[in-house]
């Protein structure tokens, strides 16, 4: 479930990156984070499948819920990291202007 949520987040971030008009929002950072984590969780899933076989595809509802909760919080964490990077770099100078205003 965590892997699935992360893959969907990676796909959405990549589509947004492809359709961007400029690089102000640094969407590449989000793509790297989500795709990197998705590939790593894929590696984890391969080993889990090798251990559990068909049981891998029939997780308990409680485990699924916990994994979904983790997946969503991973996405939230990545978005917070990305937002901090964008605000610190402040490519459009919006934050600087807002802070300089008396």
């Amino acid at each position, binding site marked *: 479930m965590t892997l699935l949520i992360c893959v969907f987040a990676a796909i959405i971030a990549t589509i947004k990156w492809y359709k961007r008009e400029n690089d102000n929002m640094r969407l590449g*950072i989000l793509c790297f*984070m989500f795709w*990197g*984590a998705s590939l*790593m969780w894929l590696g984890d899933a391969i*080993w889990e499948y090798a251990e559990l076989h068909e049981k891998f595809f029939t997780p308990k509802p409680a485990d699924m819920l916990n994994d979904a909760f983790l997946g969503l919080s991973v996405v939230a964490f990545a978005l917070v990291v990305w937002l901090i990077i964008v605000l610190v770099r402040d490519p459009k100078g919006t934050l600087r202007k807002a802070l300089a205003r008396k």
Partner: protein
Amino acid sequence: MACFVVPAAEAVVVTAAAYVMKKTEEKKAAQTAGGNAADLAAGERKIPWSRKLRWLSGLLWGGALLLAYEHVWHGEVVPWFPFLTAMNDPADTAAMLQEMATIGVTMAGIVTGVWVAMCLAADAIVKRSPKATAEKAPV
């Protein structure tokens, strides 16, 4: 338990390699600045290695960061020494090292493999003529 440590270690090495490569390319570019126009045009159609290595370090750092968060979530990483809870018990440490050698190496291998495919695809796209790209575009 600490599988993300392997891709994180690779990320450190790749980041250092990207930095060294960037410096080498800058030096080379300064030397060839007076070169002929044909060489410069050929160079424009190539993606520099430093940029490709930055893609790999981006994937590795990004993935390792989110996996580190997952390990914090599961209580396997703590903000105090020795940071990995598996280090407190020798049996857990052995299991952790086993996990790093299997799952961690697989993770690093998959990311690196995808990056190699990404570089090959990127080179092919850059080499494609603008006319061929336009022809592939939907009407």
